[in-house]
């Protein structure tokens, strides 16, 4: 650190810090993004204004943004609940595909004249269960063998993607519309479509917001939420307290996978109306991880952050008109993720002037060399900040 400054852990970060630091990180990320845009010869001010106009000004853009935010809220919640327990489910992408495959299957196999509410409950329920089951493929080995869930959930993403591609592009499956020469999914019956709330915004958005509130309540005010947070802080402490870690792992992974699966079924019901791999494989699951990180794993925070990232995503294509490639969207997401991750240091640590009387400033040294001066971050305060319990060695 710079001579004269001392880093010490914060006991409990103040409200202003917990909200202010991610916000500042966001601004830093957008500033770095602006520099990148400048570097490739684009006007960042014009680019950002275009993005704002395309996503947040006027009712049609806002409806489009909220529609896009719907699956992102759910995948963000999926990541948030799992990361809270330091179970790194990065398989929301694949669990979403599983939910989409199952949800469309339910909608197509049921009689088309079923009452819409019943149809929707069965379809979305099917997606939820499928997502939870797909997550179980990683959760069961994790719970009973300690298998690293980061690797397994990620590998399963690629498997689910290939499976979905096979169902539409690689075969004449039940999901594919046989009447069309171009590979395309069969359209679901009208009864399986989510009702519209305003303009093109479907009711899935309300479902996602309700899920966020419920998850917030679950984590904050129930014994289960307390157990989950205890496990996130320390596996050993949880075991001493008599909390069953394997069972909690299974439950949390089911909730996480279920939320992602629900997102997949809602996308089918509200947006694509059929199993469309190209419309679904747009990294909704991975973006959920970014959202959870920016929201600092708070379910209520996931909602506004998801809307913000949805705004960035939906406005990407409009940037073509000002000569900026649509790929800038993922770049901005990455920068935001990075900035917020770095910002965690400032949430957990206080940087203050070293009192000159007690100890002289150390001789200036290259930055990495003086790191030994940094105190242990207050371990276990928030799972995002503390060091992970050593990855279970295989």
């Amino acid at each position: 650190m710079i001579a004269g400054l001392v880093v010490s852990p914060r006991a409990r970060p103040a409200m202003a810090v917990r909200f202010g630091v991610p916000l500042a990180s966001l601004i830093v990320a957008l500033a770095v993004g602006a520099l990148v845009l400048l570097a490739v010869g684009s006007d960042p001010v014009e680019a950002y204004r275009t993005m704002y106009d395309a996503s947040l000004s006027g009712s049609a853009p806002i409806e489009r943004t909220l529609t896009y935010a719907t699956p992102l809220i759910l995948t963000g919640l999926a990541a948030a609940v799992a990361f809270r327990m330091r179970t790194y489910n990065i398989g929301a992408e694949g669990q979403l595909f599983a939910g989409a495959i199952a949800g469309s299957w339910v909608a197509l196999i049921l009689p088309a004249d079923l009452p819409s509410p019943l149809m929707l409950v069965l379809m979305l329920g099917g997606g939820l269960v499928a997502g939870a089951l797909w997550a179980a493929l990683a959760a069961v080995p994790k719970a009973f063998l300690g298998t690293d869930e980061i690797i397994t959930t990620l590998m399963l993403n690629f498997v689910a993607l290939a499976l979905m591609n096979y169902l539409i592009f690689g075969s004449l499956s039940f999901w594919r519309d046989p009447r069309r020469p171009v590979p395309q999914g069969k359209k679901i019956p009208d009864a399986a479509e989510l009702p519209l709330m305003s303009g093109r915004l479907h009711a899935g958005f309300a479902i996602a917001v309700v899920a966020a509130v419920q998850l917030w309540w679950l984590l904050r005010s129930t014994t289960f939420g307390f157990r989950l947070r205890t496990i996130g802080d320390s596996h050993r402490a949880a075991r001493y307290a008599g909390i069953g870690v394997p069972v909690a792992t299974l439950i949390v992974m089911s909730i996480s996978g279920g939320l992602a699966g629900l997102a997949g079924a809602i996308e089918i019901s509200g947006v694509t109306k059929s199993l469309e791999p190209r419309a679904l494989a747009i990294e909704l699951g991975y973006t959920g991880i970014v959202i959870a990180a920016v929201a600092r794993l708070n379910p209520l925070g996931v909602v506004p952050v998801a809307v913000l990232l949805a705004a960035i995503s939906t406005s990407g294509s409009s940037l073509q008109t000002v000569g900026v490639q649509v790929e800038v969207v993922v770049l901005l997401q990455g920068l935001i993720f990075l900035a917020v991750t770095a910002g965690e240091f400032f949430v957990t640590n206080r940087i203050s002037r070293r009192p000159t009387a007690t100890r002289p400033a150390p001789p200036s040294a290259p930055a990495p060399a003086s790191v030994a001066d940094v105190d242990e971050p207050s371990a276990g305060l928030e799972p995002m900040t503390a060091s992970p319990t050593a990855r279970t060695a295989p």
Partner: protein
Amino acid sequence: MNDTVFVLSAASALVAGTPILLAALGEIIAERSGVMNLGVEGMMLFGAVAAFWAGVHTHSLTLALLVGGLAGTAMSMIHALLAVTLKVNQTVSGLSLVIVGSGLSAFLGNSGDTPLLQAQNGVDVERLLPRGLADLPLIGPILFGHDVVVYLTWVAVAVAAYALYRTPAGLSLRAVGEDPAAADAAGLHVVRIRYLATAIGGFGAGVGGAYLVLAVLGTWQTGMTAGAGWIAVALVILAGWRPWLALVGAYVFGALRGLGFTLQIAQVDVPSDFLTMIPFIAAYAVVILVSASPARARRVAAPAALGEPYSREER
């Protein structure tokens, strides 16, 4: 005899496995020092786009590989800053590298007047050894028909294995990864060693991505690693953090990735989507199998302080 299905697939497995091996080898070095960098996929992508750009402009394989490696190193330094200096959660930091790397590479690959997406490969990757050797029966095409990078990778594996177990530097690296406090007390510079190991890890991933785009695929495509970086991360665990085992594993995964090609010449009809799945299902299954193995064998393998930031207590 030299154009049988077996020989052709074995030869292609070596080429397809080389990027995974380079990335895994780098990650082994990084993780041996206690730094878990999950950003391999992102570093490979950034290394690949940088190398492809360098290749288009310089037509030099050496320069392109070097630029790719340095690009990977540059990204890994972000992780080192976050994970070693700022001590944020290493898992989250690594994941953020993946997203930054895929976003940055996609953006750079499609920017400018002549985007790399439409560019021709700037470098020729030629076989190294004289024709006569490659014409030897059986082992000729499998072992001697490759370009220089394949052989340099063998050298790198040998050097890494030797350095890890037989040199003071390797001992220091492993000490820092096993017990940073003891290493610190013994006078080792934990932070400096971890930065260096992370940098080597980034270089391996960057060169791996460079080789993938220059020699295996030949054109830049957005997101072209398609999970190769994650396979490399899995491979580190499967190989028990040992370089020679990583070499074996990488070629097995290379063979699995090239299975479509193999089955095609063997005239077996399997849907291509299932072929895509196979390496990922294999990695999934093997990670579970490894974790089911006896606990003692596992404890020996993994660096004890893997993923743990080190901070010296208040002096």
